[in-house]
């Protein structure tokens, strides 16, 4: 091998190492996006479904000229709990503080921890639906066979667009760590 090709081999290996470092850094960058996005969502308040809505309390003006029908829905995601609202729907005035109940029962022989995730339909209603108290604010651990009745306290913002007169609040209960070993 000539001197020239040997030098070139050395230069090539050096460049390769640099490029490998770039690739490794970008692999790390992919994971760094996770806390980055969490921060963004926290700062911008995009993902505040697990916290009480702050402005809710001061909003006490009740708009008695309107009625909004609020419907309740309950689901479980591969979690053998029974989970249902104790009332299918209620009719409320915007601004009126309302309490409803959900019931959940662990049908398993072991204690299970679950987390409920709320969602709204239609989507446009979501910003006007304020929960002051909700079982979804924290994880729920149920002993074997335990049943529990859990309240949701909410108020609908009177600024709800007039064309919306029905809103559905839907919860899905997931098992915490439920992904483990259930990929089948």
């Amino acid at each position, binding site marked *: *091998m*000539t001197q020239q*090709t040997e030098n*070139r*081999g050395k*230069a*090539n*290996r050096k*460049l*390769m190492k640099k*490029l*490998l470092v*770039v*690739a*490794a850094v*970008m*692999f*790390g*960058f*992919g*994971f760094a*996006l*996770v806390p980055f*996005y*969490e921060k963004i*969502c926290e700062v*911008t308040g*995009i*993902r505040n479904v697990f916290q009480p809505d702050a402005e809710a309390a001061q909003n006490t003006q009740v708009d008695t000229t309107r009625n909004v029908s609020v419907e309740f829905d309950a689901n479980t*995601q591969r979690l053998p709990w029974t989970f249902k609202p104790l009332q299918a729907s209620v009719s409320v005035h915007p601004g009126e503080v309302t309490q409803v109940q959900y019931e959940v029962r662990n049908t398993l022989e072991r204690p299970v921890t*679950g*987390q409920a*995730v709320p969602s709204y339909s239609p*989507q446009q209603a979501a910003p006007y639906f304020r929960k002051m108290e909700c079982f979804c604010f924290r994880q729920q651990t149920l002993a074997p066979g335990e049943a529990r009745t859990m309240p949701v306290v909410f108020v609908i913002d009177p600024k709800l667009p007039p064309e919306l007169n029905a809103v559905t609040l839907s919860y899905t*209960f*997931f*098992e*915490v*760590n*439920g*992904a*483990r*070993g259930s*990929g*089948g």
Partner: protein
Amino acid sequence: MSAVIDSGHAHDEHRPDGGIMRWVTTTNHKDIGTLYLWFSFTMLLVGGMLALAIRAELFQPGLQFWHPEFFNQLTTMHGLIMVFGAIMPAFVGFANWQVPLMIGAPDMAFARLNNWSFWMLPVAATLLVGSFFVPGGATAAGWTIYAPLSTQMGPGMDLAIFALHIMGASSIMGSINIITTILNMRAPGMTLLRMPLFVWTWLITAYLLIAVMPVLAGAITMLLTDRHFGTSFFNAAGGGDPVMFQHIFWFFGHPEVYIMILPGFGIISQVIPAFSRKPLFGYSSMVYATASIAVLSFIVWAHHMFTVGMPTAGILFFMYATVLIAVPTGVKVFNWLTTMWRGSMSFETPMLFAVGFIFVFTMGGFTGLILAIMPIDIQLQDTYYVVAHFHYVLVAGSLFSLFAGFYFWVPKWTGRMYDEKLGKWHFWLSMIFFNVTFFPMHFLGLAGMPRRIPDYALQFAGFNEIASIGAFGFGLSQILFLWIALKVTVLGQGEKAGQRPWEGADTLEWTHLPSPAPYHSFDEQPVLG
């Protein structure tokens, strides 16, 4: 890891003996280029068969052939195989053959690594295609493998994840090789701004690959740990967020679509001047346009996610950034057209594909612009309009550029001319059937037909029927291409090609090497004046 340059043997024309071991152990860039090209063509046919299975089902409304679950596997695997098995390896094959020839280098920088990069691919392809046969079948989460579907599917998903890991590693190794070759092994006198455009586009593409393939690897590693190790990156119950998967995926995904088109731009930028018998118009603006497309491609990913519920400021940012990409893209199209302007053009098959490319790719660019307008995209997201858009840029863009490159360089590779008459047939059949297949999809999308469904409402029947007929025509036309390729390569038929069969082509492989290019070329590097 041996990183020794293949410094060539004392006597030049000693090819290794035939037999399978030659191909398994080869470190020669030309052999490896050939392997890549045959591999990717095989995957094109496999992916094409899946596409025909899709179009057969969609020929009529109702469920004819497949269960909906299997249909979803078909669309998913079609996408994965075409993107990672056909288009990307095909361009790497071109890089292997052409980059050393065009910069006057004896071989790729890391010849042994090069062999590994290739041979990882058949392993990955076997895992991927084999996943059809595991319980539950192949992954059906779409080629974008969105969570939470992808955290819930059966073992086929795991196989796909492994296959993607391997293909990603192969791409990264290949890119390191290409960058090193281009930066360190150019012939004396070939400054960066004298490199042929194909080399430039690959240099930039290789950087893109190194930047984003690891991000994909990270995303699918998170999927894997969510699936099996109890993490909750994308699991809402555990505090994760499925939408975050989309963000990470598209941070890879949008640069990825440019990875699949930039080397195609490079090929077109070689072919157009050669058949216009004029130098490329605006060479340096081409280089800068390519670079700015690459840079911009990192800040537009959320145009795939306009409907997830982003803040308005975010939507506006991604919308404007996306529209901005049309500027450098427009510069390129302008330069190609201006290169042809008053050139003494001739229309052999490579040029037909190149001109066809400009025409049809540009239509895909326009539909991209329409989709980039968020209020419109809200209507069109996940409809057949998007399917039409990306097939215009990927089939008529990437694939047609690959065909153009094949017809352009095959005389140099084999020393023989392909069958010009059949080549022209291949072009016209492909062009016509491509449009018969995909043009109606614009209308389907505008009328609201969702993508990735096995059945549809009656009013969509007419256009779907046309699209399916076109698809079978397009598929059959590629059998003609197989025959053309076999004839000129394996069977060794066709007129003997001179050193420079295209008089307008002036890069090193045409001016300094005979046809076929010798097994070892540029052991003595040419010196450019």
